[in-house]
């Protein structure tokens, strides 16, 4: 019955992370969100991804694209062994971070607003609470990503059963890459969610942050382009446009950017959590 003092950090972080996942899976609201997500991806898989992959396999289409965008800009897109995975990659690069902003907007906001945190902070440290919720929301997104990739693998196999192995290999690379990409988005949402009074407000803050940053960067770019070029890398998602034209192991070239962003954002979030009133 004695509470644990020092060994509790890791244990409680894991308990809280698992609890977040459980909240999604064993709660009608969470299940509705999950169904909505699956439906969106079902539509994407059935229409753009299935039909676009047939385009990608067409040499005339390749020539057309190369003519419009230039030979180099999207050359890697045609290197994918499984065309469906190529289209999934492009869609996921933009859609998943967007999902992330919505899915992880309520890491802390409503609990803090209604005082539920007050029941937790006397039982577990604020570090475990912050990290546990963050990991929990990463787990939720991992689950969603896993569903999507498996569905794509099945879609590719329905076209050609021999694609199983290449589809799985690409799937694993896309999976790891996407997790790395989503990490700083979720960390930024953790901070905004701590600051905001509701999930909706956190989402609005996120939109404002990206919009204002884009404007500020454009202004700085006008006067001191070298600094704007550097500052550009501080925002989550800065590398996304460059990642479209990568595939296979080559896509990991940009991984250090989101990893560093995540570490910095988690450190800032943890510090904010420690100092904030509940």
């Amino acid at each position: 019955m004695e509470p644990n003092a020092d060994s509790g950090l890791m244990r409680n972080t894991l308990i809280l992370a698992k609890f977040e996942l459980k909240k999604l899976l064993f709660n009608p609201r969470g299940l509705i969100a999950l169904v909505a997500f699956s439906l969106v991806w079902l539509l994407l898989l059935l229409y753009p991804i299935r039909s676009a992959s047939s385009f990608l396999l067409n040499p005339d289409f390749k020539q057309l694209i190369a003519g419009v965008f230039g030979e180099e800009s999207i050359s890697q897109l045609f290197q994918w062994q499984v065309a469906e995975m190529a289209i999934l990659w492009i869609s996921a690069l933009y859609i998943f971070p967007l999902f992330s902003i919505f899915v992880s907007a309520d890491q802390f906001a409503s609990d803090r607003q209604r005082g539920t945190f007050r029941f937790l902070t006397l039982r577990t440290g604020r570090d475990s609470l912050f990290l546990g919720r963050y990991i929990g929301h990463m787990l939720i997104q991992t689950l969603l990503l896993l569903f999507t990739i498996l569905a794509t693998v099945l879609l590719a196999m329905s076209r050609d059963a021999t694609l199983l192995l290449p589809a799985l290999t690409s799937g694993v690379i896309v999976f790891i890459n996407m997790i790395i990409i989503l990490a700083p988005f979720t960390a930024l949402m953790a901070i905004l969610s701590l600051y905001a009074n509701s999930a909706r407000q956190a989402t609005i803050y996120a939109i404002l942050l990206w919009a204002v940053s884009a404007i500020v960067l454009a202004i700085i770019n006008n006067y001191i382009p070298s600094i704007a070029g550097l500052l550009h890398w501080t925002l989550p998602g800065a590398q996304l446009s460059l990642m479209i034209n990568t595939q296979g192991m080559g896509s990991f070239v940009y991984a250090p950017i989101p990893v560093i962003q995540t570490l910095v954002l988690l450190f800032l979030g943890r510090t904010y959590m420690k100092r904030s009133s509940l």
Partner: protein
Amino acid sequence: MSLIKCEMLTKSYGSKLALDGVSIELKSGSPIALVGPNGAGKTTLFSLLCGYLIPSCGSVTIMGEKPGSRKLLGKVASLPQDATLDPNLNLITQFTLFGTLQGLTAKQAKAESLRVLSLVDLAHVVEQKPQSLSHGMSKRASIAQALIGSPQLVLLDEPTAGLDPANAKVIRELVRALSSDITFVISSHNLDELEKLCDQVLYLDQGKLGQSVSIQENMTDEYLTVSMQECEDELFVSALESLTGINSVTKKQENEYLIHYSAEEIHDIEVQFFTLISKNGWKYRALLKGRTLEDKLFS
């Protein structure tokens, strides 16, 4: 070691000073009451003790540790004012999470949750979500969560506000029964209730700590408070004042009188009082040794 120690504890919200240089040292033992008007800083003091807020100035320690420190996890529990449980999850799920965070296994945590919910007579609604509970039931659930595990200090911010008399009594009995193992600090506006439960009363007003009153002092206090059923006002006062050793008899409110006497001059005041009222055919409702808490604090 003192249980709670505050030194010049100050908290301000912008320009508003909510708590102004409070210094107290409290030891573990009987329940301690915290009273004061609305906006006196009671909830702020509780929040500082729980580590929800960080002091603007001064220091506070609980069992020698700063509030919110890892060593205090599970040892300090509280019923925070205005905090509500997650409306989307049923009671048992949330309570089991609380228990596991305090170091219990999932199975132990569930058993412990059922135990504390039974203490407040909520065993039949453990599968329900907080939304479907009445205000009083939610309050009792919030009190129950403070009892999970083996806390040494439990801070209850207005535990019986909004409860019906029967349930308020259950909570009072619970506090009394557990106070041999747990030190309770209770804030309330119900002075009668505090009088029954607590030994020590702290009075907070406008962020400052006023007097600290001990209920135990009543035994040595040279006062008697009487509530009469029916008697003639002036006759009653003059008859009492004519007794040797009575310094004064003051009417406090309708049919309630405060008798100040000198213990050296009158040894059997109770006997003389009862003799007097039986001779005059008066009826009394209550006799209290000492003064009421209300009288001590506000006169």
